[in-house]
């Protein structure tokens, strides 16, 4: 079986480890402002992760609140073996997966607005100029199709697609966060992409 996910992705880069160490140490010492700075810094990244896994804005807000609250309570147990980002990202992934298990198959999509910057995106321009069905579809329809397709994936597959395709994390970091081998990450991506391909066939060139 071929492994379709190419490893030559120049945009994917590993984060500098321990750049948040000082903030973490201060927060451990009771400096709530230091932790606020971490919340401010990582909310957008974690928002993307949780939102694309749940496809619901309100659920995302609640889960993120729980994630940061749990991180704050567990800060003394954070040993610094991994970066703070990887650590809190793992908390967010696990809490999102637990939430999805509890929610079951009841899907309630509540989508965010698309940033107008999408219209300047090279990939979007490329798609809309070359693909007839996409040209006819408006942005919201495309968004809904993508989200509906994502919701058809299993929770584990959606998590991997979110991290790799949307958030741009490398395989190695995904494997560390999920505690699975890189081979499993690639395998899940392969099956998820194949499934998505069926749902989004008309958008392909």
């Amino acid at each position, binding site marked *: 079986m071929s492994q379709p996910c190419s490893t030559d992705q120049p945009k994917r880069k590993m984060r500098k480890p321990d750049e948040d160490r000082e903030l973490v140490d201060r927060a451990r010492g009771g400096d709530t402002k230091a932790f606020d700075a971490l919340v401010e810094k990582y*909310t957008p990244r974690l928002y993307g992760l949780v939102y694309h896994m749940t496809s619901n804005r309100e659920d995302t807000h609640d889960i993120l*609140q729980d994630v940061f609250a749990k991180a704050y309570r567990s800060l003394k147990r954070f040993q610094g073996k991994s970066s703070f980002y990887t650590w809190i990202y793992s908390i967010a992934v696990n809490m999102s997966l637990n939430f999805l298990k509890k929610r079951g198959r009841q899907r309630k999509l509540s989508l965010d607005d*698309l940033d107008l910057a999408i219209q300047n995106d090279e990939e979007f321009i490329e798609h809309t100029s070359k693909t007839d069905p996409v040209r006819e579809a408006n942005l919201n329809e495309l968004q809904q199709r993508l989200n509906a397709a994502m919701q058809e994936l299993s929770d584990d597959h959606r998590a991997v697609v979110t991290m790799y395709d949307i958030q741009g994390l490398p395989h190695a970091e995904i494997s560390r966060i999920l505690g699975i081998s890189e081979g499993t990450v690639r395998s899940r991506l392969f099956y998820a*992409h194949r499934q*998505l391909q069926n749902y989004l066939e008309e*958008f392909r*060139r």
Partner: protein
Amino acid sequence: MSEFQDIERLLRLKRYERPPEDFYENFLEGFKERQRGEMLRQSARGLLCERVSTWFYGIGPRHWMAAGGAATAMIAAGFFLMPGSEENTGLMQIEEAGASLSQDSAEADDEDPAEKAASSADDSAETR
């Protein structure tokens, strides 16, 4: 080149989905409120623990010994008075034996005097 390159490109478009502008600001404020609330709850619990530990600390060694002795006595009393314990069973057996003896004597007292006389006559005939 990946055979799923197009899918990957489409998925990357999802990066353009953004929450409302004030989301992040409100989120941080909401988190601070929640954090403060948790800290207050924690401090109330901490205060209770502190008061209880201070109260225990204020009790002198004599009081501790007296309290320990009283507790031991209570446990011992509870053990002996507990229904179903061996001692109790023995007492109950004695009580039951006493009850059966008195019942026998009562039954003997209730015997007809004519029967008594007949039985004593039988006894004397046998001895002869």
